[in-house]
């Protein structure tokens, strides 16, 4: 049954209290939602990164379900191992029920150093769901660029300067990469659209084989935004068409949240300190607007509202 409102979400909490994530951290919202939807019969493997270090500061743990962290670049391979163990042990009568297996990784652990392990697991079709919480930089090590950092953004290793606009490249298209492996379900998600996200998590978990969700995860220190505004800023990413919400079912792209009147990208850029240096440069803003326009055309978002 699809969720219609947030009131339909399971009440049982399996994430927190006790984590040490920043106020307004998107990864905390995502972890909470994922564990709610997935329920008790779930095993999580988590790549090194903010979520991992902040949720399991020994002897505390924020996780009410089994959870394992091994290293930075291998959450997908760990998921394969857990699934294989359960497959074999269920066949041999050593375990009786098959859990959800979920891998959680940041954009660095997914799009950069972990891309090889992810590709291996997706290609093998191992039955698990990979969820990338994308805060658009290596936040745990202090805001360095990744291949998922958006064009123009300031990070400590993409500093704007006389010769540089900030991040020089456009975001790597992770969903397209995942879909290219022939997996049956992939989607984007956003913390401002919780019901949409919950339904996608559920669909991913119910997909046979591998599934992938690319979740925008606001980072208040990294994006230089107010701690109370992370959901609002995330919503602007959708409303500007910089983070279109869609799913890819058996290779078919379906827009899940339509935006009738798009906002100009400046609405998104101007509220974030990481874009401060370009928001008043029309030629740079135009480049980012072009990305949004192209997304809008692809996903059927409406015209810009002036």
């Amino acid at each position, binding site marked *: 049954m699809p969720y219609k409102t947030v009131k339909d979400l399971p009440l049982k909490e399996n994430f927190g209290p006790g984590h040490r994530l920043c106020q307004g951290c998107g990864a905390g919202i995502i972890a909470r939602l994922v564990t709610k939807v997935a329920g008790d019969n779930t095993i999580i493997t988590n790549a090194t990164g903010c979520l991992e270090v902040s949720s399991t500061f020994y002897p505390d743990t924020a996780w009410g379900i089994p959870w394992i962290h091994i290293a930075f670049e291998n959450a997908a391979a760990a*998921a394969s191992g857990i699934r294989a163990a359960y497959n074999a042990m269920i066949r041999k009568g050593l375990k009786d029920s098959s859990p959800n297996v979920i891998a959680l990784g940041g954009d660095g652990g997914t799009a950069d150093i972990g891309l090889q392990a992810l590709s291996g697991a997706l290609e093998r079709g191992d039955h698990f769901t990979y969820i990338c919480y994308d805060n658009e930089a290596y936040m745990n090590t202090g805001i360095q660029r990744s291949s998922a950092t958006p064009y123009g953004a300031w990070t400590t290793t993409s500093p704007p300067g006389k010769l540089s606009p900030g991040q020089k490249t456009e975001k790597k298209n992770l969903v397209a990469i995942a879909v290219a492996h022939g997996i049956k379900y992939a989607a984007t998600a956003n913390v401002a659209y919780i019901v949409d996200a919950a339904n996608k998590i559920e669909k991913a978990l119910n997909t046979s084989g591998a599934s992938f969700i690319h979740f925008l995860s606001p980072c208040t220190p990294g994006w230089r935004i107010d701690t109370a505004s992370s959901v609002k800023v995330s919503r602007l990413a959708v409303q500007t068409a910089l983070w279109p919400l869609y799913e890819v079912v058996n290779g078919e792209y379906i827009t899940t949240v339509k935006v009738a009147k798009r906002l100009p990208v400046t609405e998104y850029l101007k509220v974030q300190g990481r874009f401060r240096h370009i928001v008043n440069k029309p030629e740079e803003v135009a480049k980012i607007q072009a990305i949004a326009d192209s997304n809008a055309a692809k996903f059927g978002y409406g015209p810009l509202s002036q």
Partner: protein
Amino acid sequence: MKTILLSGNTSLSYAVKQLDVDVISAYPITPQTTMVEKLSEYVANGELNAEFIPVESEHSALTAALAASAAGARVFTSTSSQGLLLMHEILFITAAMRMPVVMGIADRAVSAPINIWNDHSDIMAQRDAGWICFFAESAQEAYDKTIQSYRVAEDENVHLPVNLNFDGFILTHTYEPVTTLDDEEVLKYAPKKIRSLVLDPKSPYTFGALGSPEYYFEAKYQAVKALEDSFDAIVKADKEYKKISGRGYGIFNAYMTDDADTILVSLGSIGGSVREIVRRMRRDGAKVGSLSLKLFRPFPAKQIVDTLLKTKSVVVLEKATSPGAISGPLHMEIQASLKTFDVTIPAINIIAGLGGREIGPEDIRIMFNKGLKVASQKRVDTIMDYVGVNI
């Protein structure tokens, strides 16, 4: 009990099949490849009820094995050379997380230049990862030690990963008649255990948490101590194995050491050749002996020193180097062991066989003669020497 023709590689595969391993995750690399091929065949034709994960790299091979072990499965992986180096990061994590993973290592030189032949550079570069580390001398021993490895790794008082080293090509590809146990005997000796501290929604645990300075040291200490303490379980496993199979290996093979003027210490398949040269040289009246180590971690320092005690010199034959150090890894340990127990015997290091350079009978004679010279001179001129290299 059945005697079959097996290579080093297929003897491991055969043992893994009998051990009813649940998950195998491995990546091919010469000279380990035929082992992985055989295992995938067993799984494909239903002879082994296991999941074979054809991972995309060795890093993932060990990760998946570790994770499957954390989920409670009996697991196996294997690799060699560059593959072992690629696993480096996860080797430490496997040991510190106390996962009873068993891995076969077909020892091979490391690049550059790329070289597929045997030496021990790969495992020596991983010696501080915290694994129990065995060396085999034959396919028979590789088979027997694989079975022992599971018994030791899964022992409640040990709970550590084990790697079993057997020389690339020399052992991996040489066929010999191997006497096997019956399947039931194998599982009776190394029974599969239901572990309670695993990834199971019925009793949720967090694995791999962050260890701050208040806790990290203790966690590390416990893993190091566990390796040190695994010695008794290793010895016991070998003795019990001897009871059911008639074959036991001890922690080393000491041959003609009692009255030897010089003893050559070695690792792996070369042991057999060394003993043959001992026999020949003894016929000519030279008092030489051989100590071939089967257990490298935990390092049996006391037992080695007790065996070397009465000799006049020691030659450490080594198929690895520790560039820039005073000598090779094994020699440094032997030297340190002697000193630790206040024994003053000159010990020289001979580096040989790198990248598969053959170590012939004449080479071993040269090594013994160097040892005999040191024994009569009572002093060491060159600590580290090379045999077989063209300089």
